[in-house]
């Protein structure tokens, strides 16, 4: 049996905004190390909430999330930030690049937050941008790039601190078919380098490359499908 890098036990998230909204209920989930997994389901049924919880961006109302042997629900905000910094990389639908920084600086900033000195930041950031084919856009601003290029910057940034796991929230949601294909190539490349990748998506094209697909509906895990 392969080692599980992410384990969720009885994960429940209820939002209290004057009234209670159950976003996620009693979700048990295991994601193997080195796998490429997708979380699918209708909009507003808890996919992104699940991703935020397993990425340590949010805390569950009840239940536990383990990253390896580390219980993310038992550590404080600073330790959680440290985990996000070194062990998890995020890619979002709207790219979430910092508009005042260049492409190179957007990657460097992740390294800066991990305490890498400026010289080391530059060399490694250039290498990562080379990996995603943006070596000629180092000094460009995000608003000078296409959607596909921005998403590639976001992937390069997510890899900056050599995380164990990459969490992607609708990464192809704003991309055209060609850019989506390029994105998938990059995702597979990253996965082949040993990174665990978890993607929240509606796209069947993206789901087609996944090893496992988790279906979420009404905040519950309905089924797990094995692709290969």
């Amino acid at each position, binding site marked *: 049996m392969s080692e599980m890098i992410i384990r969720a036990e009885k994960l429940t998230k209820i939002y209290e905004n004057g009234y209670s909204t159950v976003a996620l209920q009693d979700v048990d989930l295991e994601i193997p190390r080195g796998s490429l997994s997708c979380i699918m389901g209708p909009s507003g049924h808890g996919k992104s909430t699940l991703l935020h919880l397993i990425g340590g961006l949010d805390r569950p109302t009840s239940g536990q999330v383990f990253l390896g042997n580390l219980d993310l629900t038992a550590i404080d905000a600073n330790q959680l930030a440290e985990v996000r910094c070194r062990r998890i990389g995020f890619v979002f639908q709207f790219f*979430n690049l910092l508009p005042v920084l260049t492409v190179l*600086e957007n990657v*460097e*900033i*992740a*390294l*800066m937050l991990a305490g890498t000195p400026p010289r080391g930041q530059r060399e490694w950031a250039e290498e990562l941008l080379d990996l995603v084919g943006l070596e000629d856009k180092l000094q460009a601003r995000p608003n000078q790039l296409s959607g596909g290029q921005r998403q590639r910057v976001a992937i390069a940034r997510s890899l900056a601190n050599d995380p164990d796991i990459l969490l992607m929230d609708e990464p192809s949601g704003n991309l055209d078919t060609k850019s989506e294909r390029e994105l998938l190539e990059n995702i597979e490349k990253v996965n082949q380098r040993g990174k665990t990748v978890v993607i929240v998506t509606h796209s069947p094209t993206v789901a087609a490359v996944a090893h496992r697909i988790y279906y979420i509906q009404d905040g519950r895990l309905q089924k797990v499908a094995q692709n290969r």
Partner: protein
Amino acid sequence: MTRGKLVFKNLTRKKSRFLFTIMGISVGIASLVTLLSLGTGLEAEVKKQSQALGAELVVTPKGWCAYEQISVLTGETLPEAIPNADVEKVAAIKGITAIPYLVQRTAIKNQPVTVVGILPKPMKQFKNWEIDRGDYRLDQESAVVGSSIAQQFELKTGDKVTIRGTEFKIQGILKEMGNRDDLVIYLDLATAQKLYGVGDKVSFIAVKVDDVTQMDRYSQEIQERANVAVVSDKQLIRSVLAIMGTVRNTLQMIAAVAVLAAAFGIINTMLTAIHERKREIGILQALGAKRRTIFSLFLYESALYGLLGGVLGLAAGFALSFFAAPYIEQSEFTAFLGSAQSVKMFSPAVVGQTMLFAVVVACLAGIYPALKASRLSPVEAISYE
């Protein structure tokens, strides 16, 4: 990438907002610097004027308050209250030289000018005056003027000045002394007393003692013999500085309020920036920025506002104090401020105090917004649209 670079890029992304916030703090700092630098040279200037008076003791009418004591140094009009009988009693004391002053005012070309009635011969010896042009002669028809007065009103020896309807010939112009003696028209004491209708009274008596170790004894003896009060030059300086200090502190407090108002401008700017950059804060949190990192990034932005505003305010304040000093209206309170000598440009103390004040105020203003930014929930921030 460094934190400093990130802070600077964020600070300057909205150029007009950046400039207006900086200007807000600069204006406050500039007013503070102006008042601080005007005051810095004050003590030296007061001492200089006291030295120019040349007396160790000043005999005044009983009941004079500190404001009137200031006028001994500034040359403002003083009430005439010491009769000649008392002047003679004081002058008769062995071991002292007593020089009576009658301080009055006149106007030349609508400009106020100090007129001092003196005993010509003792005064010249007492002050070590030298004549630049003409003769040192003061009588019922002749006057001697200070060098600045001559320069200001383009007076030459032989010219006439009218004081209270009486014409006086300018007999001599004194050599420049570099103090308030340059700003006075001198008349013979008896002539001045008659002209101003003050009988045989004088305003005060400057006293030089032969033995400075016996000052207390002289002071006591003067008060025993005549119905007068005595202050030493040191007491005079102390009381003048105390009054000046009060005025200066009040003005500086007003300027400090201007800086505090600018601090609210910083709070407002930072809160707006946090609102606009909420999603970016979420990105930083997703990338692993700790709460203290977010806090420090926003606090550095505020501090930089203080630093840059402080530097600009310092430059503007020094320029303002340099150019404004000569235009400050002369009065008991501002007489010393109104001379260029009283402005000490680039005093390290003023620079240090002001920069520290600017940065500390900006940092204090930045604490609340920075705390607010650091306490945002990552998922809420990153989902913000």
